[in-house]
């Protein structure tokens, strides 16, 4: 395994040798001083949003620009000549009109500023909603664990927020969005324009952004800050997913090492490829695969990344003591200690998702947000219902409360990528499939002795992949004109779009799995070498709260800790051993 890791590092180093920087905006043909043409950051927010941002509902701009002159080849094409003449006439008319009505132009400045301000407001407020999802994750994960580990599980969910955020502030944001180009809906600020690319098959492959470190320089701009807030809370959503799968046996120190890695590099790398202008988003432009890897709000970028990390950590850590016998056969389920926590947390998450999905438009002026919000709630409902009935009628004769919650979250995860591109019927179907998928997936991992305390692999990993793939099947072609720079709307197989979009999604999902598996294995062994990942067996039986954190989650309550851990025949446990070690 170590050889694999070093091999990967060598490959990355070799790639760096051929890296070159590419500016997203081409340099001007003439040679005025660079400082004059480079986009200026606007930290005060007084220069963001002007007449150029004023547009009607169809996206037609108030301010017209002169069309570029036709080349000799273009002049032979009558369609191009006609389009040029129309655009030229509109531009000449506009100039003449603007001279007679200067007030209209000044009003347009105000309209443009207000339009951008609405988008800022929308992005920030939905970002605040997503931040609250941290509380939802904390409750779901803690509720599904045992009472003796409540303080430890809650602490991991708490500390990932500052740890992930600071890593993202340090360099994660620059890696992910440093080569973004223009922030379209928020005034078009183009200062984050430095993408490291490598040329393969004669096409540029964007690998990593390289601007906006510590939100300084080009990063010190109001639009960049709004984007930072919104993307930071998304990153923290990913960051907190693996803590559930690896709970009840993971050393807090090892978790903190993971906390340093997730926001700095683990999340931003694949994130750049999909959302930061990297190579997966360019599959459409460069290779004609639909609109490239389309992921509207993060089924792959946020959820599948978290799910894959969860899978690797849960697999490498091994199952919790007492759940399986020595042959990996499931002998005793470990039951949760607080179902009300789980359900409250699920509702908080479902509420936060109204920020997660509609907010990903980054535009309150994009009225598709209504469709996105309704699709989101429909998929959550069908997901919850499908999982409940599948457990009740098909699998175990009882409607398992923990699986109800997993089902709702599975529906939400699956609709995250396609939320903007499918109809209400499509969203409902996506939710139903997600609800059944999550149950079967939980059973599968249990059979494979990969012990996922909360179902994070099934909810976020498996359904994240399903959500992305569903775009390639169910996108109905009513939205997404110009997405990832490809004209035309996003259309899936069942709506006559062919398989191209599906292949792009499949490439994205596969890339996510491979990349995050390798990164997770690297981080796991880094923590293994530095501090070790798994707590001692005695600590696990005693409960991680006191040995790891120094305080119980529920001080003053009497708990039969032995009864909480199913003890295999022939195992013995001496009470008090851990406490005396902890004191020494």
């Amino acid at each position: 395994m170590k050889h694999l890791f070093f091999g990967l590092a060598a490959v990355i180093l070799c790639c760096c040798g051929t890296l070159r920087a590419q500016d997203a905006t081409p340099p001007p043909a003439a040679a005025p001083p660079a400082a004059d043409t480079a986009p200026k950051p606007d930290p005060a927010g007084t220069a963001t949003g002007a007449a150029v941002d004023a547009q009607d509902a169809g996206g037609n701009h108030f301010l017209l620009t002169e069309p570029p002159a036709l080349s000799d080849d273009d002049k032979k094409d009558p369609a191009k000549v006609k389009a040029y003449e129309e655009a030229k006439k509109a531009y000449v008319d506009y100039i003449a009109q603007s001279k007679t009505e200067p007030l209209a132009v000044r009003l347009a400045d105000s309209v443009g500023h207000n339009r951008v301000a609405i988008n800022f407001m929308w992005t920030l407020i939905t970002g605040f909603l997503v931040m609250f999802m941290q509380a939802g994750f904390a409750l779901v994960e803690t509720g599904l664990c045992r009472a003796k580990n409540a303080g430890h599980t809650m602490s991991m969910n708490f500390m990932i927020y500052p740890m992930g955020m600071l890593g993202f502030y340090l360099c994660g944001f620059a890696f992910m969005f440093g080569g973004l180009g223009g922030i379209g809906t928020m005034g078009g600020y183009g200062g984050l324009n430095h993408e490291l690319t490598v040329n393969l098959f004669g096409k540029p492959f964007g690998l990593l952004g390289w601007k906006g470190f510590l939100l300084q320089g080009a990063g010190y701009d109001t639009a960049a800050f709004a984007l930072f807030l919104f993307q930071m809370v998304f990153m923290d959503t990913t960051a907190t997913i693996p803590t559930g799968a690896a709970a009840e046996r993971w050393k807090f120190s090892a978790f903190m090492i993971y906390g340093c890695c997730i926001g700095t590099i683990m999340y931003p790398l694949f994130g750049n490829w999909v959302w930061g202008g990297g190579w997966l988003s360019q599959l459409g432009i460069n290779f004609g695969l639909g609109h490239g890897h389309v992921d509207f709000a993060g089924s792959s970028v946020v959820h599948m990344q978290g799910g894959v990390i969860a899978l690797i950590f849960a697999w490498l850590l091994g199952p919790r003591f007492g759940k399986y016998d020595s042959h990996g056969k499931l002998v005793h389920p470990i039951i949760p200690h607080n179902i009300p926590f789980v359900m409250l947390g699920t509702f908080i998450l479902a509420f936060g998702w109204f920020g997660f999905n509609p907010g990903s438009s980054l535009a309150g002026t994009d009225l598709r947000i209504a469709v996105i919000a309704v699709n989101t709630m429909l998929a959550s409902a069908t997901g919850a219902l499908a999982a409940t009935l599948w457990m009740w009628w098909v699998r175990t004769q009882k409607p398992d409360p923990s699986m109800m919650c997993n089902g709702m979250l599975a529906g939400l995860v699956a609709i995250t990528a396609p939320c903007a591109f499918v109809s209400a019927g499509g969203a409902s179907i996506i939710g139903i499939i997600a609800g059944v998928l999550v149950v079967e997936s939980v059973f599968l991992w249990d059979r494979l002795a990969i012990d996922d305390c909360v179902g994070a692999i099934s909810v976020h990993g498996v359904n994240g992949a399903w959500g992305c793939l569903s775009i390639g099947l169910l996108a109905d072609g009513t939205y997404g004109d110009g997405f990832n720079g490809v004209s035309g709307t996003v259309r899936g197989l069942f709506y006559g779009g062919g398989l191209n979009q599906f292949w792009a999604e499949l490439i994205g999902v596969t890339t996510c799995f491979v990349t995050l598996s390798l990164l997770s294995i690297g981080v796991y062994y880094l923590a293994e070498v530095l501090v070790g990942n798994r707590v001692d067996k005695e600590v696990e039986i005693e409960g991680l709260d006191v040995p790891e954190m120094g305080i119980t989650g529920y001080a003053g309550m009497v708990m039969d800790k032995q009864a909480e851990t199913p003890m295999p025949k022939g195992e013995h446990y001496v009470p008090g051993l851990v406490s005396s070690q902890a004191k020494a």
Partner: protein
Amino acid sequence: MKKLEALIEPFRLNQVKEALADLGITAMTVTEVRGLARHQEHSEIYRGSEYVVDLLPKIKLELVLEEHEVEDAVTAIVRLSKKNGVEAGKVFVSGIDEATVVQTD
């Protein structure tokens, strides 16, 4: 004096308490306990896997009574705790040598 210890099912506490109050017994200690009773164990399913529930929640009543009260109290508890012929609790009676009241000044 006699000490009476009764293990009953949790949801019967209120009616037992009222019945004892009718007999003029107004002081008792109530504890939540769990009892192992193999003949009452049953299995449940969590996320598709079966597990055995053998430690069942019970309520333990402790009463210290005068000798003449004991028979009525035991009868009342037993009558109210019956459940379809299945054993649903137990009452123990033992002797008390001495009792001292701790009083505030």
